[in-house]
């Protein structure tokens, strides 16, 4: 219970930090890093909900959601990096 609360709050803090960064940063790379940190915060919240204490089996459903989320996040990051590169190339031509 306390463990779940502790890590859940950490997840929320991480999500807030990432959200603020993704809005306030100007460079594309740092925005992407911030978005990834925000995603990790949300995942951590889900993971905290899934945790049920030492010795007890955790809830597999949120864990499976997180697993799906991690793979989607990395593919979205890869696509965003490719978009950023294309953007820079078109700007260089101007």
């Amino acid at each position, binding site marked *: 219970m306390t463990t779940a*609360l502790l890590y859940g709050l950490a997840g929320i803090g991480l999500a807030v930090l990432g959200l603020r960064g993704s809005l306030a940063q*100007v460079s594309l790379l740092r925005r992407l890093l911030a978005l990834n*940190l925000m995603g990790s915060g949300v995942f*951590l919240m889900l993971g905290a909900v899934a945790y049920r204490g030492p010795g007890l089996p955790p809830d597999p459903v949120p864990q499976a959601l997180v697993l799906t989320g991690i*793979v989607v996040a990395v593919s979205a990051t890869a696509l965003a990096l490719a978009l950023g590169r*294309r953007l*820079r190339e078109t700007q260089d031509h101007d």
Partner: protein
Amino acid sequence: MDGIALILLDALLILVLLGLAWATLESRDPRRGVVLFIAFGLVLALVWARLAAPDVALAEAAIGAGLSGALLLAALRDEPEAGHDPSEPEPATPARRRLPSLTNWALGLLCLGLGLVVTWAFVDALSVADPERLAGQVMARIVESGVSNPVTAVLLNFRGYDTLLELAVLLAALLGILALGPERGGYAPAGPVLAGLAGWLIPGLILTGGYLLWVGAHAPGGAFQAGAILAAAAVIRRLAGDRAAGLPQGLALRALSLAGVAVFLGVGLALLVAGRPFLGFPPTWAGTLILAIESAATLAIGATLALAFVGGRPAAWDSPQQRRALDPTQVRNQP
């Protein structure tokens, strides 16, 4: 007595995690930011291990602590910002400009408010004495799922639609990357150290990927982790000078990228034809079908993430005939 040690460990882990996130965002030098982000992924993997989520810890160790770092670093190579010396004082280039301070404060306040609302909701949700969880239903019917690892059962059987759509998202991202331009420049041929490393690391990674795919049925592991590890083998291959990253050419590469979605859909449709619901595995066959889908998904995830590291449409994407017909260097240089 080990209770106190674990609580202190929790506190340190959380402190380090948040500190690394903060430092990542505050880094002026983008390369430093990426290194800190890799360290963040490593600590997050430890956190998942602590939260009794070894399946997630495996994925985070493979993706967060390894692969996304490699992806970001490859992208940094064509980032003009990366060129300057970090020991120099901050140059006042446009890339460094910040938002006006008033907007900045308002933004901070807004995010904080949002965080407080989420905190309230989260604490409220946790304080329910004995919440009704889906876990009970998963455990009650896990025998029918064909696997004994509950996370794999949820991913491939009980919530198979999610995973199918996730593979579709992965494919869509890949198509986007391929459409946006040709691949990034390659790496210098490996020196003796890197060549020696690749010589044992690539077989080791492939073996570990196979092991995790197999073990995923009854213990932590599965297609995502295995796929990410295969992609890491491709990354090493490309770093050692092989531009194609060990991927096959032409039609074989296309088939590999499509394999996950194709086999998943094929199994679903075959079940429909056989008179069962879409992706409703018959319990006796479920184990075999899940292994078939997971094997295809592993290859597809590996190929997709490897192509993401390549960073665009590789020369090998088209067959040799197509390449001759449509010489990309000729086409690209026209205005």
